[in-house]
């Protein structure tokens, strides 16, 4: 096949550009890499077209077959973000995240606008649970059942991504709900306020939920 390399370049170019168009890139990489990836897609299309007429370079059949695999998977399977299954495999951290990564928001201004990651930073900056009691919370995340929590509690969690899905770290906040906790993996919006509870002999801040509403997965499922 004379045009194998050109076909591969076109396929990858179109794949990257279509992910860029549909917003699917957000399932795989950090937003700062979205534009470079789109530019790469455009360059690959240009390279493919430029060498189309002359037939393209000779490449090894093995390399071509290997390179064809991911792009076929990408076209055949729907683009999917990491599922909550990976959260339990990686272990959800509810402790420190981003030391020295000072909150970029006004800590006391609008706590009900904080994301899960913002709250993790707030608690990293000031771990004393008592000083956060009573602050209002409204966060969106997926439900994660942590066996170390009491039966009426669960974690509301999100993946934090630095670079791409490889480094996604799940972080979560403990929630205590009036009703039975929703099934693991369900996306929910949790509303409530922080309370201090005794969890396994440790004083811990827990969200006392006034409402746990099922919701759709956000378009950008990760936090950054």
């Amino acid at each position, binding site marked *: 096949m004379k045009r194998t*390399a050109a076909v*591969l*370049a076109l396929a*990858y170019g179109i794949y*990257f550009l279509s*992910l860029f168009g549909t917003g699917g*890139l957000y*399932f*795989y*990489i*950090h937003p700062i*890499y979205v534009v*470079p*990836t789109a*530019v*790469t897609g455009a360059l*690959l299309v240009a*390279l493919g077209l*430029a*060498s189309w007429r*002359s037939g*393209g*370079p*000779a*490449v*090894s059949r*093995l*390399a*071509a077959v290997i*390179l064809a*695999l*991911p792009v076929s*998977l*990408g076209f055949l*399977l729907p683009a*999917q*973000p*990491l*599922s*909550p*299954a*990976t959260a*339990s*495999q*990686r*272990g959800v*951290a509810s*402790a420190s*995240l*981003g*030391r*020295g*990564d000072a909150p970029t928001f006004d800590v006391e201004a609008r706590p009900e606008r904080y994301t899960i990651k913002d709250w993790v930073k707030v608690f990293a900056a000031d771990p004393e649970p008592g000083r956060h009691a009573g602050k209002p919370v409204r966060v969106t995340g997926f439900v994660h059942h942590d066996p170390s929590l009491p039966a009426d509690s669960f974690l509301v969690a999100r993946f934090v991504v*630095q*670079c*791409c*899905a*490889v*480094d996604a*770290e799940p972080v979560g906040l403990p929630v205590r709900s009036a009703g039975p906790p929703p099934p693991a993996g369900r996306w929910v919006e949790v509303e409530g306020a922080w309370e201090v509870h005794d969890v396994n002999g440790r004083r811990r801040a827990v969200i006392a939920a006034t409402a746990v509403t099922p919701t759709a997965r956000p378009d950008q499922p990760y936090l950054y």
Partner: protein
Amino acid sequence: MSGLARAQDGVTIFLGVIIEAAPFLLLGVLVSQALALVLARERTLRWLPRDRLGSLAAMAGLGALFPVCECGNVPVARRLITRGVPAAAAVVFLLSAPALNPVVALSTFAAFRERPLMVVYRLAFTFLVAMGVGLLLTWHPRPDDLLRRRVIDDGHDHGAPVTTTPVRRFAQGTLAEFVEMGAVLVVGAALAALTQTLVPRTALLGIGQGPVVSVAAMMALAVVLSICSTVDAFVALAYAGTFTDGSLIAFLVFGPMVDIKSLLLMLTVFTAKTVALVAVVVTEMVFLLGLVLNYWIG
């Protein structure tokens, strides 16, 4: 958790690595092809220092001019070799360039703003290890045996017909190199995705405070994760509270030099024996430096 969700996440991680690395890979290939155009007349790089230490140090400094990740550096190194740069010097370039450049220094500083010494340790140790391995290789009796035969023969052109225009030649050379390097990247991404979905990360992390065991654990983590050097400092940060400083520096020095995908990419230039030797020596040196930091400095 269901096996289907796991498999699907494996695919997401797999594609994530490829999508994230693709711009860097293409950038590296473009730099390599541009070098080929610029150096088309010259068979050897005459401006390089002749003496042993000087030529190695020059290669370590060259990384500052190519702020691309591991995946982008291999095509550049290959081009340098076909233009007469000795194999040992090319290894120094490959080991140092991913970490010893301004972009990585900045991102490491951004992550460890409270402790700028971490940046100094990272850069200094990277230089030390790269130079050490390079020096060792200069004593090889037959330096050409370090390389794959094909790389040495490859010096003239990239198989493109001479009749085509320079633009077409450039496009064809870029495509050929992109396909070849891309295939290796795909294998590396697949291995990284497999280990990530099969090995529970918490298994590695129960051991963060032992001065010896933590260094080994973070080095293992670096190999498994295979993250780009420009962002690995932020990942290291996630372990800053629980792991020793020596182990964090070991992670930051070791990761860009030895991980699944960079080893596979290196195999396209060097023989398996050379790559194994480099990996072993780098592992030993980084491990020792991590221990030195934990016991005598930190």
